[in-house]
């Protein structure tokens, strides 16, 4: 669990603004998210700091927009856990932050 946390913290410390940085951070987050056990999700999310939680939420929405059903099902779990701990405000911050928006439609 500690390795999961450190890997995740590294990728989430600051959401980068440029495309390449965002993509590489997302790949890291995606790998960590797929490997974490369901029972450990809550503990990992609890250890994250608020800015990291905001960054994680943005990555979750990025992942949910990809249309991969396996990835989506895991991300729903993380999303629910993160919303429970960080609140609706976390979602609102990911909706309103224009500088680091993850999807361009």
């Amino acid at each position, binding site marked *: 669990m500690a390795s999961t946390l450190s890997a995740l913290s590294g990728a989430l410390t600051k959401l980068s603004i440029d495309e390449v940085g965002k993509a590489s951070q997302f790949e890291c987050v995606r790998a960590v998210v797929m490997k974490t056990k369901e029972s450990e999700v809550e503990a990992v999310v609890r250890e994250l700091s608020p800015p990291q939680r905001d960054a994680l939420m943005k990555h979750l*929405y990025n992942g*949910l*927009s*990809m*249309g*991969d*059903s396996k990835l*989506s*099902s895991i991300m*729903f*779990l993380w*999303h*629910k856990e993160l*919303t429970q701990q960080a609140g*609706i405000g976390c*979602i*609102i911050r*990911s*909706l*309103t*932050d*224009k500088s680091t*928006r*993850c*999807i361009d*439609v």
Partner: protein
Amino acid sequence: MSNTLRPYLTCVRNTLTAALCIQNFPCQQVERHNKPEIEYRTNEELLLNPVLICRTENEKVFIEPSINSVRISVKVKQSDELEEILARKFTSFLEQRAEAFRVMRRRAVQGYDISFLITNVHCEEMYKHKLVDFICQFMEEIDREINELKLSVNTRGRAVATEFLSAFT
């Protein structure tokens, strides 16, 4: 597949609760006008980041928030041609009666089956949590409806064919 329905709806519900934090905002271009900014899109700063929540490739919800309105587009699961036809007919039936739903859009956004437009006026007149409940319930029930329609089409087809072909045996 049904084991991701509950988490999918929970995710949509939470996102909608966040996106529906809308307020009255008069039009900046024309005096005394009040327009749903998500439809007119005249000012970039009034639009929020859109969110796409995919359960699978073919089943997704696209939520576009803005300062005074939110547009929610739903793509319903359609696994074969019959379901596609049924979904099209069903959503077209609902869209013709969009006035009765108040929050429904008469034309779905390109690439989706049905769209809703919720404005600040709707949030003032109706409970926000009830609006969110409505959308989530709608998404759940439309799947069920289309399954039922498909079953009844197949049953009727089978009954008619049996009856018709029994004349030749």
